[in-house]
């Protein structure tokens, strides 16, 4: 064995935790820290106690709501009499809002399918696994792609008169421009915060923002014929 050995060996000194633990680190590689030793507690009783407590508090809140507010019940179903507007359950009102602008095959089939597919594939795209800020590397190129995408999206939304979705997009785009012009050394804390956010964060935040705005508009601001109404006027 004339070859120099290709690794260094070490022995873990924490006898209580693991009686014998040997680590080999090959040369020209750096050891990755994959896990830290952590203080742990027993699931029984510490975690189970908290779980039961959390569910009990939830139950008390919901029972209180059930005592105070009655579930809606309208007249018996009548196929000959269409209410105006006929609204879906609240969590689908974002889609129903889109249905107002786009044909059903887009708002009712294409958009939900795309949403589900993109939710499923999120963890399988290792983009930005180290979660670096979007504009911290390849700034020029990424800014170009960002401007093309953002302006394209906004023109598309405005062309179809989807101002309800265009406004949140515009706000997120402005936040992204702020992020692009900030760095982790910026003076303002919010600029530092935004500059560190990876692409996945921006996409999800945009989605969450659109979801909230579209659902809220569909729930509170839509009246007969899906016209714009103010909730405090009716």
């Amino acid at each position, binding site marked *: 064995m004339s070859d120099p050995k290709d690794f260094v060996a*070490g022995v873990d000194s924490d006898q209580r935790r693991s009686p014998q633990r040997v680590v080999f680190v090959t040369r020209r590689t750096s050891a990755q820290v994959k896990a830290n030793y952590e203080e742990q507690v027993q699931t*029984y009783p510490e975690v189970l106690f908290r779980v039961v407590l959390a569910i009990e508090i939830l139950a008390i809140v919901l029972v209180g709501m059930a005592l105070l507010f009655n579930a809606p*019940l309208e007249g018996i179903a009548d196929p000959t009499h269409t209410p105006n507007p006929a609204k879906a359950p609240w969590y689908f009102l974002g889609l129903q809002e889109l249905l107002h602008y786009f044909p059903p095959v887009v708002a009712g089939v294409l958009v939900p399918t795309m949403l589900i597919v993109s939710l499923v594939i*999120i963890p*399988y795209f290792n983009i930005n696994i180290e979660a670096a800020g979007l504009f911290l590397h390849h700034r020029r190129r990424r800014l170009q792609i960002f401007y093309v995408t953002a302006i394209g999206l906004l023109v598309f939304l405005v062309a179809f008169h989807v101002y309800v979705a265009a406004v949140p997009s515009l706000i997120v785009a402005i936040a992204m421009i702020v992020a692009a012009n900030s760095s982790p050394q910026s003076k303002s804390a919010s600029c530092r915060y935004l500059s560190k956010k990876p692409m996945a964060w921006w996409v999800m935040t945009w989605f*969450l923002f659109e979801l909230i705005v579209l659902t809220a508009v569909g729930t509170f601001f839509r009246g007969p014929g899906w016209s714009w109404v103010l909730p405090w006027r009716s």
Partner: protein
Amino acid sequence: MPGKTDKILEQVEQSRVWRSIFRSGRGTSTLHRALAIQQNVFLHLFSTKVRKRMLSVSSTWYLGTLTLGTFMILIITGVLLMLYYHPSVPQAYADMKDLQFVVSSGLFLRNLHRWSAQAMVFLVFAHMFKVFYRGAYRAPREFNWVIGVVLLLITLLLSYTGYLLPWDQLAYWAITVGSNLSKAVPLVGSKIHFLMLGGNQVNANALLRFYVLHCLILPLAALLFIAVHFWRIRKDGGLYVHQSEPKRAGAVDESTLVKEAK
């Protein structure tokens, strides 16, 4: 007389019958506590130990736990509601009125079911976004995220099918609006629409189909996926710890191990 009760309890817990059911036996040692989790068919889905900092409210907001809580309330109230409900037209609506005016606590039962259902939809979404923003979907937890998406869809379907059951105007037209969307699917749209409703429009057949989906098929599917979802947490190395979350004192970094080696 606490002394006597303790003695009786102890005798019961040491009896042959009790020990045949709960094999781990009495004791407060770490081993006994670990066995209490490991030897229970429901609890063994969870790990016997949890990182201490995951207990803090800020790390998870207990959103998954609370979602489970709403689901349990929904099962209990749902089963009770089934005792008073006929999935037929127009009896379904009459049953709603009975729940409101005749059945004792019927209104409360329906209110609790309704608000818990709304809470569950909200909590599932909140749980998803919290998991995303913590980065807890990353490897090796990718597949658990996918199961979570499936559970999100099941939750939405459960809520949607339940929406029709009161058979009032609100229910009827919400389902009409929603089910009309399925017609827009290219090629097979009208077939899907017909399959879903058991007819060309929302009618008694649709009510029965939604009832079976709501009370049997979807809850069973939900239970199955919830079990896998929980089990995968353990299999994927416990709840995800975000790097930015502060370490506790006494935590030993594995990088020290490497330094010792050199």
